């Protein structure tokens, strides 16, 4: 996946912040759990960056949920 063109990240909506808050984790703590910089968490939560599949899976594992619960396509195919 890597860095997506603008329209790719705009197609995704994510619930990372909600799941993180439910688990009572700070951005820094979640960032440490999945091995990214704390700023990257801000970018993901605000929909400014669409993570790779590997990172999405790590986030799902850290938040104890499924990837499709965390990330959804805004428009279904």
């Amino acid at each position: 996946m890597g860095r997506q063109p603008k329209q790719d990240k705009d197609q995704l909506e994510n619930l990372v912040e909600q799941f993180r808050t439910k688990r009572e984790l700070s951005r820094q703590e979640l960032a440490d759990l999945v091995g990214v910089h704390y700023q990257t968490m801000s970018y993901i939560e605000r929909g400014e960056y669409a993570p790779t599949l590997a990172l999405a899976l790590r986030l799902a594992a850290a938040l104890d949920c499924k990837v499709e619960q965390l990330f959804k396509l805004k428009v279904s195919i």
Partner: protein
Amino acid sequence: MNSPKTILENMRRARVERILSTPPTGLLVSRGFRRLLCVLAVVFSYIFFFTLLIPVSKIWETITSGGHVVTMNALGPAQRFLLSVATFVGWAGTLAPLILLASFLFLRTSMRRVTSLPDEFLDEREIANRDWAFKTGYLVIRRVGFAVAAGFLVLKVLAFNPSINLDDDGNRIREGLEANMFAFDTYLSSLTGMGAINFYFNMIGLLTYVAYTFPLILLAWRESKFTEVNAAPVNLVPLEGAAKIARQYFRRAGLVGSVFVGFVLFLSLGFAFRPLGEFLTFSGALFLFFLVAVPYAMFVYIWASIKTVEILKAAKADNYNQGRYASASMGALVFYVITQLLGISIALIFTQLGNFSSADNPILYLFVAGLAMIPAQAISFLFIRKLGNGQEAKS
């Protein structure tokens, strides 16, 4: 004995360790400061570029009526305007490189983690952003370079006129487009009036600066989008990092000190060997020295000032301003204040230089105060090292 490969690997490891152990904090990662540095780098690049496009030598010729020195009263309004332009160009041409170099050094320090660490120490978004910034920087510079080269090629083609018209005396007559192109060519030649090497050095130096800094600007601007933090260690220097910062300060200050000591030794050689002295004085070698050394010294001073404030804040948060380390905390604060007072007095006097008579010339004060700042800040960092060592021992 270590093989060259091992030596290089050790150097790389030491560099990585250095970057990881002293991450930029506080002001250096703040959105406003990063964006201010970007704006300064862009604005002063343009200012410097436009000063290079003003034919100062022609202006001086006009003001001085062909080489004759005239008094201010004898100058007409147009000449006075030209004089102010020439003065502005002189100041901007001197100040702009200093500000450009200082903003580059701060940008580099602020973005060093992302630009200099190997991929395994960065996350995927940082790698993607870094690659985007360097690729975009390359593409923009490539396209601008191509456009400039193509533009000059078009001018060259337009200026080429196979029909040569001669007047009665056999002199070539330039008319129409060719005349305009010839005027443009004459203007370009006049830009090198203060010395061709000087002009080309400035121009090539500016291009190199843009090539170095443009990707950094793109990266810093994008990375400063979300800088809010909710973890204390990122916003504030943890006190155990203070010893490492102190070591980094002494390394940087040592570099500044050795450059200046080397300069004094070099200058002494100039007194001993007259041709070397003349070379130093008239070749611009002194100016080049200041062009590099002074912004770096400014950078070290400002960086150290920011770090001192952060460390003193951390010391206060950890109650290090009381008890066993109170004297170290107080010592760091006192010498920090002394350094800042000296710095402020230098800046204030520097802005008022024109108002002093030659008898009250404050250059000596500026020189001594500037020298005194180095030990004052170094003593402050000796105390900081003590604070940091204390925290390391505690943890």
